C-alpha cells in the first residue's frame, strides 16, 4: 500500500515537473532576448495547487478515508440502482417520460434550449450508433447526413414553400440516398481507411454546401426557413382548420422529444432483431459473418442508410428550429463530437449513448463561465473521463434471452 502511494506520488511529481518544463519555454522566453521565471512559476503554482487538491482528495478517497461522505452517497445510488433494476421497466420509463415532459415547464428558456440540442444529438448519436456501434464502421462524417437533412428542408421550404410535414420524410429520404452514396464505395474498406473516407465525404458535403451558391446560397446560409406548422381545428364560424406555427421553444422541445423517443424505440427494435444481430456479427468478424450467410454488402449499406435517415430527420428539425441553416453547423469537428458522444457512452449501449450526448452537450455549456478557458477545460475533461471510464459511461449489457423462458 505504502509502496503504491510512493509510486503515485512519484508519478505526480514527475508529471508536474514535466509540465513545468513545458510551460517555461512558452511563458518564460521573450523575444527581446530576456528570460523570466516569475510568470511561469505563478501559472505553474496555480496548476500545482489546483491539481494537488484534486490529487489529495483522490488519495484520501482511494484510501477510504472519505467513506463518511462517499459511502452514504454510493449506498443511496446503489440502492436506487437496485430499486430501478427491481422495478418493472415501465415504472422508471414513465417516471423518466413524465420528467422529460415537465422539464421545460420547470426550467427556463436556456435549459430548454440546451435540452433541444441534447435531443437532436440523441437522434444523431443513435444514428451513428447503428453505423459505428452496431456495424462497427468508424464514421467520421456523420454530420454530413444531418446537413443534408437540414438543407433539404431549408431549400424545399424557402424555394418552393413546401411545408415541414412534406419535407420531413423527404429530408430522411435525401439523407438516406446520401448514406447509400457514401456507403457504396466504402464497403470494401475497413477500420481507419473507412474512417478517412467518411471524413472525406463529410468534408465534401460541407464544401459543396459552402460553395454551390445557386442551390445553397453558400456561406450566407439559407434564411427564413419556416418553423413547423400544425393544423389546428378551429370551432368558431363552423369547423375549420388553421395553421398554428410552432414558435415557442417549449413546443419545439416536445417535437424534439417525440422524435428522440421514436428514434430510441426504432433503434432499440432494430438492435434486437435479426438485422441488429447481422450488423453485430459484421462488427465482430465480417468474413465469418459473410460465411455464416449474412449478406454483408447489403447490411453495411443498410446500416449507412438507417443511420443517415435518423440524422436526416434530426437535421430537418434543426433547420426548422434555427430558421436558418449555414455550413458552419456541419463541420468535421461536429462529426467528431458526435462520434465522441457514442464512444463516451460506451459504443454499444443505447442508454450510454444518451448519457454521452448529455455529457458532451451540457459540459461546454457548464463551462461557458470560463470564457476562453472553456475548451481547455473541456478537452481536459474528455481525457479524464476516458482515463477513468475507458469503456464508456455505461457498458453494454447483453440481453439475457434464456431467463424469459424459464
Amino acid at each position: 500500500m505504502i509502496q503504491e502511494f510512493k509510486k503515485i506520488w512519484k508519478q505526480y511529481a514527475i508529471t508536474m515537473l514535466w509540465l513545468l518544463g513545458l510551460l517555461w519555454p512558452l511563458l518564460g522566453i521573450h523575444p527581446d532576448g530576456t528570460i523570466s521565471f516569475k510568470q511561469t512559476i505563478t501559472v505553474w503554482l496555480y496548476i500545482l495547487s489546483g491539481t494537488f487538491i484534486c490529487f489529495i482528495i483522490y488519495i484520501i478517497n482511494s484510501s477510504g478515508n472519505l467513506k463518511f461522505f462517499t459511502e452514504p452517497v454510493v449506498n443511496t445510488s446503489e440502492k436506487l440502482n437496485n430499486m430501478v433494476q427491481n422495478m418493472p421497466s415501465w415504472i422508471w420509463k414513465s417516471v423518466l417520460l413524465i420528467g422529460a415532459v415537465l422539464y421545460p415547464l420547470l426550467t427556463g428558456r436556456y435549459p430548454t434550449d440546451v435540452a433541444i440540442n441534447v435531443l437532436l444529438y440523441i437522434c444523431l448519436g443513435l444514428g451513428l450508433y447503428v453505423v459505428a456501434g452496431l456495424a462497427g464502421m468508424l464514421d467520421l462524417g456523420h454530420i454530413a447526413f444531418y446537413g443534408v437533412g437540414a438543407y433539404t428542408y431549408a431549400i424545399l421550404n424557402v424555394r418552393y414553400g413546401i411545408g415541414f410535414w412534406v419535407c420531413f420524410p423527404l429530408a430522411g429520404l435525401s439523407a438516406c440516398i446520401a448514406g447509400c452514396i457514401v456507403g457504396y464505395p466504402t464497403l470494401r474498406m475497413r477500420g481507419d481507411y473507412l474512417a478517412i473516407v467518411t471524413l472525406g465525404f463529410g468534408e465534401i458535403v460541407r464544401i459543396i454546401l459552402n460553395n454551390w451558391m445557386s442551390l445553397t446560397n453558400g456561406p450566407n446560409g439559407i434564411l427564413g426557413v419556416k418553423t413547423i406548422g400544425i393544423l389546428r381545428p378551429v370551432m368558431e364560424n363552423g369547423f375549420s382548420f388553421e395553421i398554428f406555427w410552432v414558435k415557442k421553444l417549449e413546443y419545439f422541445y416536445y417535437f424534439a422529444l417525440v422524435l428522440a423517443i421514436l428514434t430510441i424505440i426504432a433503434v432499440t427494435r432494430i438492435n434486437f432483431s435479426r438485422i441488429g444481430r447481422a450488423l453485430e456479427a459484421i462488427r465482430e468478424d465480417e468474413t465469418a459473418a459473410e460465411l455464416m450467410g449474412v449478406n454483408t454488402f447489403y447490411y453495411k449499406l443498410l446500416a449507412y442508410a438507417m443511420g443517415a435517415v435518423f440524422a436526416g430527420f434530426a437535421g430537418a428539425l434543426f433547420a426548422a428550429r434555427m430558421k436558418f441553416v449555414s455550413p458552419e453547423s456541419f463541420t468535421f469537428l461536429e462529426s467528431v463530437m458526435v462520434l465522441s458522444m457514442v464512444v463516451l457512452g460506451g459504443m454499444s449501449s443505447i442508454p450510454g449513448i444518451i448519457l454521452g450526448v448529455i455529457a458532451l452537450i451540457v459540459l461546454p455549456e457548464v463551462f461557458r463561465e470560463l470564457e476562453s478557458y472553456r475548451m481547455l477545460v473541456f478537452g481536459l475533461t474528455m481525457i479524464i473521463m476516458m482515463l477513468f471510464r475507458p469503456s464508456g459511461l455505461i457498458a453494454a449489457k447483453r440481453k439475457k434471452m434464456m431467463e424469459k423462458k424459464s
Partner: protein
Amino acid sequence: MAHLELKNITVRFGGLYALSELSFAIHTGEILGLIGPNGAGKTTIFNVLTGVYKPTEGDVTFEGESILGKKPHEIFSRGVARTFQNIRLFSKMTALENTMVAMHCRSNKGVMGALLRTNSQKAEEAFIKEKALEALKFMGVIQFADTVASNLPYGSQRRLEIARALASEPKVLLLDEPAAGMNPSESSELMKDIARISERGIDVLLVEHDMKVVMGVCNRIVCVEHGIKIAEGSPQEIQNNPKVIEAYLGQPAAKHD
C-alpha cells in the same frame, strides 16, 4: 453420388500455385477426411468451396449445379456450412446470438418488420431462437446460451462454432481442424459428435492433423501436398500409402498410431 465436387481446381496467388488441377468429391452420406502437411492447401480448398476465393481455373458444383462465383453467403444458404481453423466466433455476442446469426439466411423479415414488431416478425424471431437452441443442445453447449462467446472455455468455443454451423441445417459441413488444441479425451468426444452429425444426414469434410480422429471417423481420406492430390482412399489404404507416409505421416508416426 457426388454431393459437393471440386473439378480441376487451380488457384494461383500471384505466380504461386496454391492448388493445381485438384479434383475430388464429397459423396452423399460420407465423412471425408482431408489431410496433408501445413501449407498443402487444405484451407485454400475450404475457401474455394465456400466462395471466399474464386479459383483461377476449374469448377465447383453442389448438388449438380455450379456454385462458382457465388457469394459466400449464397453458398452458405444453399447448405454448405463451415467452421474455422482459428476460432472465429462473434466474440462479444452470446452463444445463443452467435447461433441465431447463422439462421439469418433462413429468415427474411426486414427493417419495417423490426420497426413495427409485427406478429409475423415475432413468430420468426421465435422460430430462429428455437432452431438455435436446438443446435446448441445438439452440441451440448446449451448451458452457455447466455454466455458471451469469448468467455466460453476453449473446447466449448469449438463446439459452439459447430453448433453455429449446424443451426441453419446445412447439407454439407466443412470442419477445419476441430480437434486442434483438444486433449485426447476431448477429441474422442468430438469423434462421437462428428458421427452424430453424419447420422443427421449431413455430409462432413474434415481437415485434421490428429490422425486418431481422422482414421477413427472418416469413411474416406484425401491427402494433398503442395496443392496436388497425392492419394485418395480408405483410411487403411492411406495409412499404408508410401507417398502419404513420406510426405505427411512420417515413419515413426505410421508405426505408432
